[in-house]
């Protein structure tokens, strides 16, 4: 099996892709957004509950997509839960840099993070949109 594919589809990606965590809608949410990938028509819906102190108390997603987009959404919800919006936005930046193969230094994400599993996407530039779809949707939900 080709190494690039092994890097792209690590165990954890296939796992989250088939069995996503935090799938659905937050029972209580005060922020939400829809997103889609114009390349393939995949869609995602992200809901959040953000408290007075700008902490993400709950975050869930639903939708359809490829393994990369679903796994990325699933890992995102795990990572961002209980983070402040400020931290979450830094992670957003780190993550998009990571998958784009940007040379910018990561500020909060480390190799230990499960999200790091998505680094393999950098070898497949046209899949970056899959990996970041849920993230951009989170972003637009919190920007409103």
């Amino acid at each position: 099996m080709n190494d690039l594919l092994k890097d792209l589809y690590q165990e954890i990606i296939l796992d989250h892709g088939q069995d996503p965590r935090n799938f659905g809608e937050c029972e209580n949410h005060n922020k939400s957004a829809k997103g889609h990938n114009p390349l393939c028509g995949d869609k995602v819906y992200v809901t959040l509950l953000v408290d007075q102190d700008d902490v993400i108390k709950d975050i869930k997603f639903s939708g359809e997509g490829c393994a990369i987009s679903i796994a990325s959404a699933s890992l995102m919800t795990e990572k961002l839960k209980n983070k402040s919006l400020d931290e979450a936005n830094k992670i957003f930046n780190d993550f998009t840099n990571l998958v784009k193969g940007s040379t910018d230094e990561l500020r909060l994400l480390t190799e230990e993070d499960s999200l790091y599993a998505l680094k393999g996407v950098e070898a497949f530039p046209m899949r970056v949109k899959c990996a970041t779809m849920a993230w951009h949707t989170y972003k637009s939900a919190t920007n409103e």
Partner: protein
Amino acid sequence: MSKALLNSNIKDDFAIFEKKILNKDLIYFDTAASAQKPKIVINEINDFYNNHYSNVSRGVHTLSVESTFKYEDSRKKVKDFINAKSDNEIIFTKSATESINLVAQTFCERYMKQGDEVILSIMEHHSNLVPWYFLREKYGVVLKFAMIDEEGKIDLDHFSSLINDKTKIASITHLSNVFGTTTNKEIVKICREKEIFIMLDGCQAAAHNKIDVQDLDCDFYVFSGHKTYGPSGIGVLYGKENILNDLPPYQGGGGMISEVTLDSVSFADLPAKYEAGTPPLVEAYGLGIAIDYMNSIGIENIMLHEQELSNYALKKMKELEFVEIYGNGNEKSSIISFNLNHIHAHEVASFLDVEGIALRAGHHCCQPLMRHLKVNATSRISFGVYNDIKEIEVFIEALNKCKDFFKK
């Protein structure tokens, strides 16, 4: 079977097949998106720039003459390629998309008013939908959509039933870029009987079938150079001369005028009337060379070759129980759309890419059709002159590997 296949050393005509994709031979199954270019096309583009280049139509000097003649010569080749009656019926645009926009806009200005109707189909490419949506939005034109049958062909009865007194034009794909099915030319007869105009979107057909616009009897026919082995940046609009004469101009600018004062403008005769500004002249020339190339193989032979490949691929794919094929007929021309159970088309595309196989995954600019098929995306393979049976074997094996990889 092999009788219908082209000699496999046809690959040598294309430099790109010397390229390796991650150390694998390139298997290019994405001709429906854009065809690879024969060396002769690229060499002739070089020669044009290196020995004959200048702007066209306006200058007196030698290079201007040479460029103009090469440009106009190409128009003649296109005319013969689709058997138009006159050079005046061949307009060079930048793409089929532009050709369709041109017709939609000028036709509407000339012949339609609020409430008038246009017939499209649910399997049209976005390029044959959105220009009409603009008319709906701006002028209150009504759009109706013909249904398709299980095979992926226009349902002619349904098409016919949509036509009424308000219907002015139909615009329909000649060969579906998702199913590979060809629209029955009966459709033009229906339009003739009901006295409406018809445009055929020949993007996929032009590289695959012998096109005869006089025999088809359609009013407009469009295709793109880059899908017929020509360069990027060039498209064709065919229109019957009397109709093009009757329609208003589209874009304004140098080259399309007869006389300009501060108060008025009169327009040049066809085809210049529709070619405002410096045209994609070298691209038009390149398309002419691509046509020469296709003719040298024989468009009939190309069709038979691609048909053979499609038949073989279809047979092999049907043997794989995890493959779902869209459109249940056997007519697939050079295009087959499919999905692997439970595996997203993007995964298939990335997986096969690593095997050196270039195919397309997505909605193929046919979102309404995808919705009809109840999928977001499909994978699509499509063939050109350079493909062969061995590549299909590699592809089938790769599909098997792909299924195994994502099963775990």
